[in-house]
């Protein structure tokens, strides 16, 4: 499906304020509400707009620590990626699993209530994950930009 300038305007507005009503988004994108609604349906139908997800504020739920774990796998084992990812999915505190081409193979985003809780997750759940060759941690301090905007 090809998208045109109206779709781009619509998506820009929707990315900026996902909670706004269709009427509001339509007005700001310079479209009628009916057109806006039809275009959104078309974007959903084509699989371009896959959904709108609520973002959970983990800090408000008592998870003060967020760590990005960058992992190198032992790639001599052909099942290293599959085994590792399947096992990582079972750790409840893992929020994101990403795979990369580059110096790092996999990254896990892990949250914990505090440093003691993090240490416990790290020792009991992360280190036993299969095929880890090397691992380094980045402690998350703050979000400077998190809108996931797009240069549409």
């Amino acid at each position, binding site marked *: 499906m090809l998208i045109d300038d109206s779709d781009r305007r619509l*998506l820009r507005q929707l990315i900026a304020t996902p909670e706004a009503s269709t009427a509001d988004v339509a007005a700001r994108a310079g479209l009628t509400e009916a057109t806006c609604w039809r275009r959104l349906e078309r974007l959903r139908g084509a699989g371009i707009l896959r959904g*709108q997800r609520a973002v959970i504020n983990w800090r408000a739920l008592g998870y003060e620590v967020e760590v990005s774990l960058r992992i190198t796998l032992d790639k001599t084992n052909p099942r290293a990626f599959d085994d590792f990812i399947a096992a990582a999915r079972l750790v409840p505190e893992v929020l994101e699993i990403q795979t990369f081409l580059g110096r790092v193979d996999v990254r896990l985003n892990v949250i914990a209530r505090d440093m003691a809780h993090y240490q416990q997750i790290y020792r009991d759940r992360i280190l036993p994950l299969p095929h880890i060759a090397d691992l380094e941690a980045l402690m998350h301090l703050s979000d400077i930009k998190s809108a996931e905007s797009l240069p549409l």
Partner: protein
Amino acid sequence: MIALDEIDRAILRALAEDATQSAGALGRKLGLSQPATWRRIKRLRDEGAIAGQRLDLDLAALGFGVTVFLGISLAAKGRVSLPDFERAVAAIPEVQTVQHVLGLYDYRLRVVARDLSDFERVWRRRIMTLPGVGGVDANVLLSEERLAGPL
């Protein structure tokens, strides 16, 4: 910290999947009345358990074929103004997220581009010219999944 019961957790799990569903539809799934569901959603929002919404877009279908994560370390720490760097990096349209981190790097960036040559343009013109950039490490995203988390 917000105290959650099992129903609150179920509501958060459901909204993290689809934030557009109505209180009525969500209540039916959970065996709860529309007003009771609405009150719970309102409380979760008011108390900050829900930070907002995020669009889940097929970036490749929109013409953004490449996502790269950059780890940036600042040169000559202490002499670089962090606010200056942060303002400049957040203003780059291709930069989707910026996180201040502690560890091997100072900042973690998520960058989208149309293809690798478009990424090279962003890299040369926008990233390498940022005030105070020292080392940069790049990893091209191959796959990504987001999980429900401890709810």
